[in-house]
């Protein structure tokens, strides 16, 4: 990003400005469950959605798994153990149905998304949009031409009604309920999320987007996304997330499953900017068949605690996986993020690039796995993690694991931790930049491998966010 662009933008705000996202709407709901998780709530969610019997069974079994599974004994155990599952609202219906026209979305909710700039973004550069408010999708659209080509882009509730067979066949096959405590929770109370199916050979050149908004206090949002790319197809899916700032905590626990059939290409981009009272505990996994390519582009700026390790299981020959992630942890934030690559076929390749910044006592952790199964000759993986620490209160951890059960491989891992170079700062300040501006510029450069993969509008937005995060934070 150019210096002009940075200087054009005001950094007058001191401290962390979340005002553009942190506003609260009045609660005006069709249905709001009581606090806490019971079998009754799970049954209620399923019946309100008129779900088939098998899905109710799936949910109830997941609930029993959730109740039995212990909390993870790694990561930030202190914060995890402080989650009060009894204080959460598991299901909130804010609108009778999902609308296809912004004008039909209830006025209050529409205003929310207007303030977040979603309708404008759709007009400018998106092929389809889903907007989820609390538990369910309130707005949904897809361009006519994609529809004509047979592309399915629906909210998951509608998809289950309209495409039950295909959902039943794939739902939970990449991430079973029993995968971990939070995937079990999601499987029990999931609501909303996206379903994308791209027919063979179809390339969706313009991104599809989903926008997730939590408004209610102590809300639990549990969206469920499944993307299936048929052979030779391409799709880019983008998700953005925000929430108001409350004094008590909310929980976001999504499950995202990607299936890349032979020769297909899926790119999944996340810009997570949850407010600092949200626990963001998400399970994301892709399966990549022969000659396919899966990319997770993952930006973590917000939340109190994020634990998220997008995984790619390379099960077909020559499949390729990439994770490109950035994390920014400020005061009272812990970004525990990373990536997993599982090589389970010959000549599979993967790349992980992770960049993180900690400041004001924030903590970033990279946690990753590269595994090569036996009989996967020609596997190659390259991992690079860089962390910047901006002050002496902050912390950075790197926990990579490499499990290599095959001889004929090339596996490389590198990581560095350092502070912003004083020489660089000095140079930029000698050119007339303030220390804040100079630091923001260095950080933009540090994150560049990530931002250059974003659509332009997102890159600009991200740089602006970083600038706000940075202002008044150094020196």
């Amino acid at each position: 990003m150019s210096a002009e662009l940075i200087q054009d933008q005001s950094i007058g705000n001191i401290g962390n400005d979340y005002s553009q996202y942190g506003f609260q709407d009045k609660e005006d709901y069709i249905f709001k469950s009581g606090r806490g998780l019971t079998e009754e709530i799970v049954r209620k969610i399923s019946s309100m959605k008129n779900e088939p019997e098998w899905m109710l069974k799936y949910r109830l079994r997941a609930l029993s798994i959730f109740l039995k599974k212990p909390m993870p004994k790694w990561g930030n155990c202190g914060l995890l153990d402080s989650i009060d599952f009894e204080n959460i609202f598991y299901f909130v219906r804010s609108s009778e149905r999902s609308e296809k026209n912004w004008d039909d979305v209830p006025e209050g909710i529409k205003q929310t998304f207007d303030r977040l700039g979603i309708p404008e973004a759709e007009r400018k550069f998106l092929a389809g949009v889903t907007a989820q408010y609390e538990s369910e999708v309130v707005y949904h659209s897809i361009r006519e031409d994609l529809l004509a080509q047979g592309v399915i882009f629906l909210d998951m509730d509608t998809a289950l009604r309209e495409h039950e067979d295909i959902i039943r066949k794939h739902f939970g096959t990449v991430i079973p309920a029993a995968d971990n405590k939070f995937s079990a929770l999601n499987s029990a109370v999931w609501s909303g999320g996206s379903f994308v199916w791209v027919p063979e050979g179809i390339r969706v050149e313009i991104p599809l987007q989903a926008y997730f908004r939590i408004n209610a206090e102590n809300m639990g949002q549990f969206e469920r996304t499944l993307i299936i790319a048929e052979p030779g197809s391409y799709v880019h899916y983008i998700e953005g997330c925000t929430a108001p700032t409350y004094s008590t905590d909310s929980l976001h626990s999504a499950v995202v499953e990607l299936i890349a059939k032979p020769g297909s290409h899926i790119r999944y981009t996340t810009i997570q900017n949850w407010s600092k009272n949200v626990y963001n505990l998400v399970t994301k996994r892709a399966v990549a068949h022969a000659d396919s390519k899966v990319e997770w582009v993952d930006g973590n700026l917000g939340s109190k605690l994020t634990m998220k390790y997008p995984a790619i299981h390379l099960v077909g020959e020559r499949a390729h996986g990439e994770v490109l992630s950035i994390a920014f942890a400020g005061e009272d934030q812990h970004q525990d993020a990373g990536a997993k690559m599982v090589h389970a076929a010959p000549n599979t390749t993967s790349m992980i690039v992770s960049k993180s910044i900690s400041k004001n006592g924030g903590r970033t952790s990279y946690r990753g796995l590269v595994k090569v199964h036996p009989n996967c000759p020609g596997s190659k993986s390259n991992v690079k993690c860089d962390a910047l620490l901006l002050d002496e209160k902050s912390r950075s951890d790197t926990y990579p694991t490499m499990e290599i059960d095959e001889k004929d491989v090339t596996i490389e891992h590198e990581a560095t931790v350092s502070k912003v170079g004083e020489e660089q700062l000095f140079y930029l300040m000698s050119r007339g930049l303030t220390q804040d501006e100079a630091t923001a510029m260095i950080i933009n450069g540090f994150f560049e491998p990530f931002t250059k993969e974003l659509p332009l509008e997102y890159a600009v937005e991200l740089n602006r966010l970083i600038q706000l995060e940075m202002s008044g934070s150094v020196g």
Partner: protein
Amino acid sequence: MSAEFSKVASKADVPEGHVKVYTVEKKRIAVCNVAGKFFAVADLCTHDGGPLGEGELVENTIECPRHGARFDVATGAVVCMPAVIPIATYPCEERGDDLWVAV
């Protein structure tokens, strides 16, 4: 080379819908009773070594108790991730009231 069958249990030891683990030739084998038919598979999840025999039978699959990976008990094929590699299966025969497995 044809494997030697050994007697591992009597049929009554493994009720319908249940799994029992036996050690045969130093290998841990999970014997599954799916709707009255018997199958023998390795008691080792290929995802991270979980004890499959402690998992549940779900239709014709066995589910790992650790992360929910599922395998077809007849073929060993992965039906549900996070596992991606099939498990070993072993011939399992009913001889009278007994179950014989070849390892």
